């Protein structure tokens, strides 16, 4: 058999294996995207199979849509704060749990009771977002029956007749939601970073210890550089979560698919859903979907590029 024929046979063999998954992927992943893209140029209502082609009208309207622009701004705000706060907290806890303690024999270990903390920190991750929204709904409840309000009233910090309407305050609502996301995420990233930290050879720490490095120095000079890959991945994941936020916003805040009060907690996905299912503007909603897809992709590329640095091997 000639070289060429052999090559063809090999590629044919591989292609045979690739064809089925590729076809499935194209049908169920790529094709819906293409469809969404197509629908975004129509005035489809979502309730009927007939629609007209309207060109780029939807995109032009999107540029003028203040609600959507506000939502985009909120997403960007979350995009900065969700990864930043979550990763910083997770890194801090992970470091304390794994390398923050000072054992009597000079070994590297976590603070006392670190095994216990590791398990406890992971708890929030076990809860689904639906349960979480009920749980925090009770915490943020706007009358004195709410955990926060009850607590603050008992302390005499707020008047029982004027409780804080946490999720109904335009300036508080987004931060209240941010807290839930961070609370939920820290445990998982703590475990992720812990795993990464445990794979760092102990002798590096011991060497640092012998050289007289303190906790902060050990962290910034040894741990963080060696964890950079994990941090980078986490940032992308958290960034994507910050671009979504649908479940929490739609269940916890007021309005059809959430976003209240008066659009102050609106994110792109809630605006999209409201237009898609409630206002019967599905073509318009598809245009939003396309914008979200584009933004998410740009975001991932930027994050991976911007955080690229030399890989440290050990």
């Amino acid at each position, binding site marked *: 058999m000639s070289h060429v024929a052999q090559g063809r046979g090999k590629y044919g063999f591989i292609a045979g294996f690739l064809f089925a998954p590729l076809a499935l992927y194209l049908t169920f992943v790529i094709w819906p995207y293409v469809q969404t893209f197509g629908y975004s140029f129509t005035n489809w209502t979502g309730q009927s199979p007939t629609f007209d082609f309207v060109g780029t009208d939807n995109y032009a309207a999107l540029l003028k849509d203040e609600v959507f622009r506000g939502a985009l701004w909120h997403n960007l705000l979350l995009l900065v704060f969700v990864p930043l706060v979550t990763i910083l907290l997770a890194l801090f806890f992970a470091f304390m749990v794994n390398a923050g303690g000072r054992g009597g024999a000079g070994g590297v270990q976590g603070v006392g009771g670190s095994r216990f903390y590791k398990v406890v920190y992971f708890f929030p991750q076990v809860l689904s977002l639906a349960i979480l929204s009920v749980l925090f709904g009770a915490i943020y409840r*706007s009358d*004195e029956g709410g955990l926060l309000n009850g607590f603050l009233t008992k302390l005499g910090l707020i008047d029982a007749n004027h409780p804080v309407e946490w999720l109904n305050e335009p300036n508080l609502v987004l931060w209240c939601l941010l807290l839930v996301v961070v609370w939920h995420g820290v445990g998982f990233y703590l475990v992720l970073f812990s795993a990464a930290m445990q794979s760092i050879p102990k002798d590096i720490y011991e060497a640092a210890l012998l050289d007289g490095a303190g906790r902060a120095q050990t962290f910034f000079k040894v741990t963080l550089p060696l964890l950079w890959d994990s941090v980078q991945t986490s940032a992308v994941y958290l960034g994507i979560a910050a671009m979504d936020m649908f479940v929490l916003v739609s269940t916890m805040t*007021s309005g059809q698919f959430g976003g209240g009060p008066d659009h102050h907690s609106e994110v792109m996905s809630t605006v999209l859903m409201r237009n898609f299912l409630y206002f019967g503007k599905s073509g318009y909603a598809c245009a939003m979907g396309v914008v979200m897809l584009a933004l998410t992709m740009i975001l991932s590329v930027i994050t991976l590029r911007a955080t690229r640095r030399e890989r440290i091997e050990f």
Partner: protein
Amino acid sequence: MSMGSIGEGLGRRDLIKRSAALGLITVPTMSFLSACASGGAENSTKGPAKAPVTKENPFGVAKGGKLDVVVFKGGFGDDYAKAWEAAFDKKWGTTSSHLGTQEITAKLQPRFNAGNPPDVIDDSGAQQIKLDVLAKGDQLADLTAVLDAPSLDDPSKKVRDTLVDGAYEQGLQGGKFVVLKYVYAVFGFWYSGKLFKEKGWAPPKTWDEFLAVCTKAKEAGIGGLAHQGKFPYYINVVIMDLIAKKGGLDAVKAIDNLEPNAFEGSAAALAAVEAVYEVVEKGLLMPGTNGLTHTESQTAWNQYKAAFIPSGSWLENEQLKQTPEDFDMKFLPMPLLADSKMPLEAIRAGVDEPFIVPEKAANKAAALEFLRSMLSREWSTIFAQQANSLTVVKDGVDPGVKLRPGTQSAVEALKAAGGNTFSYRYPDWYSEMDTEIQNASNELMAQRIQPKEWIKRAQAAVNKAAQDPNAKNNKRS
């Protein structure tokens, strides 16, 4: 229950289901449906042999057939349907099968597609199959025959003459009567008869009296008005009803018909919004009520933490478990502003809970007879007792029957209202406008905007809706 669940959104799962259904499945289903349609003719013989049509049996129900009933098991439960089926089986010797479920679409879509749908369906709840979709697919049987059949209570009358206003119009799809909306709801304030008796408060007739009771409540250490703040739909009931009663039906039509002076320049609208705002300004709201869900605020009200709450007549059944035995729930028509055009007794009333018969039902005759029976006073009373709600049958509850206090007071209010009922269409016609007005109301209740700003925002929402292509078709006179 569809009316009570107005504020609850659809999950993303539904979006996926729907977009999958629309985007991927429509094409294959269409051919599948047409295949069924063409094969349907042979299937129609599988039903029971038809009995001769008589005056007592206008649809020719054959004795001893089968009847397949599916009902939405929501706020009204499904005990009423079981009682109906037992009564039906007894009379016609049929064997009924019963399914009470919340997953209407999941359970029924495959059956519609396969051409073997049930005979009677209560197509309600968050997962209802959209009625316009069914109607366009020719899946709904024409129910005009039921309207024209003699009423069971008085054979000299046609069924259509025993229905409340609006039941016919709101059952039309493309000009054909295919949906029987069975539940009749009245809207207004609710209070505890026990609390009012204890405190010696009289149910207010005017807005000033209403404010006075709220003030007394505040002095007694409880909230005046509670509302379902997370869903501003409910406080809009108060605002809109005040507008209607002060400005008369013309004010209602001006809003529904999207007129340029529906809110701006309307004295009735400004007076109504200012009246509601007065409650806020004077601190007569139950503390924290602006952020509560419907169940949270209603439960607080059931715990005597507020004097009044606005809602529709599904409230009693919705709160059944949270209501103390001696609470003595009472309905209160919206109190009057000065110089109101409508009388105190006037109330907002609407129909809901759609019952349908599929075009391809195996036992259509029995299904139509079932619907005719539903519109009898006997079955209507069963519903009022089991589901604690009114039906579209005029005067449809046996006066000798003991109802729960809330339902009883709603029946009395309805009787007192007589022809003085009104309803708004804009929430069904223009959901975007409705949402924007709700947002404005939420801001008003939180004291972040003033009545004048509310009027401005509401009018802007109206003007925006006027650009909707449907605005031409949605006119009322």
